[in-house]
């Protein structure tokens, strides 16, 4: 049974595309057939982060408008043969994404994939609402920073109101992915702590990705963080997060935390 994940945040620049690529690759590495779908029509970037920018021929709008068949538009990853990309259109305007068209594409993707990961554009306009429309699971990417937390709260409200699941009276499974976290600054009291953000947003935590130069390095290379260097701190965080999304129980660690004896003995309870 295919699962649809939306990676969303409201605010721009918090790491949605990076997280989509990293989680997509991590799930595909589990040998589960995965497609990452870019919903940012007009400002596509998932192709670039995935290193597939030179192989884009058709995009999601071509499929919706019937100019191309879905298999023609899907790009297979060169490193993982279980990973595919459905790019967004760069030239069309946002209105070429229609609710009926998106539904048609999602229905067809569900027949062929285990995981469908939708990379939402920033904002709360059509692209963002269509990206979350069919989601079973939402990954809310948040930075430990006031404007990001506020926008995430707004998005959580939309997930409870504007998705198919919400309209059927069901719930979208929501997960908080905290990115660009700096444990040293949080310990000094200069950055919101993990527990602060969790208390304010009150949704379960799926991962803590540390602020790291490895993220920029990976996007420079056009490789998902989890493929560029699978031993780097952000890669480990994303690999664990992907396992949690897949239903495994993995103990939560705060990257860069100096753990005392008690902490070592008792570990940290994952949400």
């Amino acid at each position, binding site marked *: 049974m295919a699962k649809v994940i939306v990676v969303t945040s409201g605010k721009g620049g918090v790491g949605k595309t990076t997280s989509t690529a990293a989680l997509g690759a991590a799930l595909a590495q589990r040998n589960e057939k995965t497609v990452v779908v870019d919903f940012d029509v007009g400002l596509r970037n998932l192709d670039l982060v995935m290193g597939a920018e030179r192989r884009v021929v058709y995009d999601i709008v071509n499929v919706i408008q019937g100019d191309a068949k879905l298999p023609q538009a899907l790009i297979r990853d060169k490193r993982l043969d279980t990973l595919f990309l459905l790019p967004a259109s760069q030239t069309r305007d946002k209105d070429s994404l229609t609710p009926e068209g998106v539904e048609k594409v999602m229905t067809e993707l569900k027949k062929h994939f285990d995981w469908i990961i939708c990379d939402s554009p920033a904002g709360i306009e059509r692209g963002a609402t269509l990206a979350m429309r069919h989601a079973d699971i939402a990954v809310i990417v948040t930075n430990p920073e*006031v404007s990001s*937390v*506020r926008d995430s*709260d*707004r998005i959580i409200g939309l997930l409870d109101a504007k998705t198919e699941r919400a309209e059927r009276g069901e719930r979208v499974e929501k997960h908080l992915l905290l990115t660009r976290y700096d444990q040293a600054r949080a310990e000094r*009291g*200069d950055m*919101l702590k993990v527990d*602060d953000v969790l208390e*304010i947003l009150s949704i379960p935590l799926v991962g803590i990705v540390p602020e790291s130069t490895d993220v920029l390095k990976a996007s420079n290379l056009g490789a998902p963080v989890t493929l560029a260097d699978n031993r780097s701190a952000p890669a480990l965080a994303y690999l664990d997060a992907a396992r949690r999304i897949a239903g495994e129980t993995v103990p939560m660690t705060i990257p860069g935390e100096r753990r005392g004896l008690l902490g070592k003995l008792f570990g940290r309870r994952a949400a």
Partner: protein
Amino acid sequence: MSIFRFFSKQTSAPTARERLQVLLAHERASVGHSDLVAKLREEILAVIAKHVQVDGDKVTVKMDRGETVSTLEVDIEIPLNAVRAA
């Protein structure tokens, strides 16, 4: 300066946390229907304008959204000759 900061141990994260908690409590409450305090402000001004010719410059409205209590402060200068004929 830095020596004072060292002793007072002022950190910014607790302020961020408090500001967010207050803000979001209000935003969550106002989703769907419009913000109560803003609505009160509009209606109170409308009622006053019905009876008194109000000079826009002579009206001060202050709103303070607090954690448990919000205050709406409407300060209007009413000149003696401004009362409208009923």
